[in-house]
């Protein structure tokens, strides 16, 4: 964001985590479920 916007009355909400980070978290959550045996077989 440019400095010109910093003085604006309404400050846009910052994304808590980036899209990349969410994608990594989802992938690791799925990997953990596979490792724990929750998903034993994923068909294709």
């Amino acid at each position, binding site marked *: 964001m440019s400095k010109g916007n910093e003085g604006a009355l309404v400050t*846009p909400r910052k994304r808590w985590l980036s899209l*990349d980070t969410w*994608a990594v978290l989802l*992938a690791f959550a799925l*990997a953990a479920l*596979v490792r724990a045996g929750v998903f034993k077989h*994923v068909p294709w």
Partner: protein
Amino acid sequence: MADAVLLAQVQPARPVAQFVKLIPGVLLLAGVGYAGKLLEQNVWKYAKDHHWTFPNIEYVLWAILIGLAISNTVGIPQIFRAGVATYEFWLKAGIVLLGARFLLGDVLKLGGPTLALVLIEIVGAIAFMTLLGRVFGLKPKLATLLAVGSAVCGVSAIIATKGAIEADDEDSSFAIAAILALGALALFTFPLIGHSLHLSDHAYGVWSGLAVDNTAEAAAAGALYSDAAGKLAVLTKTTRNALIGFVVLAYAIYWASKGQAQAVGNKAAFLWQKFPKFVLGFLLISLLATLAVFNKEQIGALANLSRWAFLLTFAGVGLRTNFRQLAKQGLRPFAVGAIGEVLIAVFTLGLVYGAQRIFHW
């Protein structure tokens, strides 16, 4: 197309409401992708049963074609747009999961030559695009956006650079449109060229990862050739993505030195902010697979989860490509992009041919 990019940047008002808004579009991605998979399985079988000559078209191409047909005829109703814009999220999750199919030793072994090719490609692409931008009289910042988009990683690189060099919205729309239109074209031309030149899966995969700019299209162009080529295309493209921060930082410093962008304060923080985190996720999953944290069946399950994530991505590639919107963006940036991309494709093909001989791919 640009709508999809803008939608992806919308800040969530309320997380639950925002999440619910994504559901229709994600279901559309899944429906289109699964329809592609069913068509792959059934059309060829039907043609064979009826003794017709019909090529075995991969689910990747079916999913893209169905998406293109919907986007360019009835269009994408508003209710689906937020969810369709998540295709990049599925791509990144799919790339991280794909890490389980690479042992870290393989990544390092493949990564060395690939990194060298990527560095040469980045320098060549920036030089071609900058020169073409001057010849065609494009605005310098638009030429910068096209150079970064074609050198590193398509739309993400353009968006990252736009903020860093304070380029106009119009310029970034032009650059994104050109990169996406040419990426769509590559999906149909690259596999044909690869087959006509009898490229190995390895050589073709590296070529797609080097020459196709947007990650989704690079993965799709690779997967259209073969599963092995798809893996290599993703690895090569991920190596390019990993360098995004350095290229954006160099341009940010250049434009700041001309007084046309803000100076970069903490360069390390800037690099970390621009670094694509999914690359770290890919390497970490690869490390876990190398340490035998997953057994063979579990690696198979992770590979299939990765395929499902890519299925949603490929459907999204078709659904977010609207040729009428792309055509509205003007001819000159597209001409510069097209000439530059052809030059880069030929240049990288030469690099891959050379590497094929040296490394016996």
